[in-house]
């Protein structure tokens, strides 16, 4: 099988892509939630942060 040695671990090419995709989606979700959330409480809690990161706010 085409096992790849990467990041200190042996994985198949398919499993590698899958795990990276899950980790990447998790990252996009976290950034998207804090940066783009329209939820009032989350918006107010992260207000100064979003201004300081130049996320479109308000």
């Amino acid at each position, binding site marked *: 099988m085409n096992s790849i*040695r*990467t*990041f*200190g*671990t042996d*994985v198949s090419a398919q*499993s*590698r892509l899958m*795990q*990276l*995709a*899950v*980790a*990447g989606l*998790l*990252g*996009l*979700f*976290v*950034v998207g939630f*804090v*940066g*783009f959330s329209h939820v*009032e*409480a989350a*918006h*107010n*809690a*992260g*207000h*100064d*942060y*979003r*201004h*300081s*990161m*130049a*996320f*479109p*706010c*308000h």
Partner: protein
Amino acid sequence: MTLFRNVVFVAALAGLVAGLVLAALQAYATVPLILQAETYEGAAHGHSHDGDDAVGGHSHDEEAGWAPADGFERFFYTSMANVVTAIGFGLILVVASELAGGIAGWRQGLLWGLAGFATFTLAPGLGLPPELPAMPVADLGARQAWWLGTVVATGAGLALIAFRRSLPLAALGIVLIAAPHVIGAPQPVSFETAVPHGLHHDFVVAVTVTNLVFWVVLGSVAGALRSRFSDEPEAQKSFA
């Protein structure tokens, strides 16, 4: 899921460090300017309510919904948002670099950090400079869409230039990076604001420089940690 675990571990640790550094920098570089601009919000409501132009105020804060109290509570939530998003950015950075072969050491991580800075701060900031409260802004949805499109196009453009050794693809990369600025970011109908120009200028500089430090720390720490995981010294020497 060892790879997933390693990616999350590196991203979480790098994000924690970079997020705390950024929160500390913001506390004295950007947040005081935001607080100063908020004093103009009352004055700004008299102007620019024409068309789809909206004052970048947040009067809803006072009217409805929970908001952290000024002072320590507000700083605490800002720091939390910093660390959480930093881990998110860390995940994106580590995953992108793994797809390209993995970061070998802190110096390569620094370059990845610079790419993140160009993608997430510089490029969107050209069309949509960091905004202070009480400044007029275009429709929020349109700005978020342009911001996202610019980030994706810039990231893809940089990847084409860095990882495809081909002149046509490098040219396509430049086109991708330039395209969002040719299209143009959504702008407010009027730029009239009570916020002094000098205050906004200081804020743009402060945001850009603090983000530069953030991305450099994030990439460098991720690179340094990553090299401790990998036991292939040869493979670490190149991106691909």
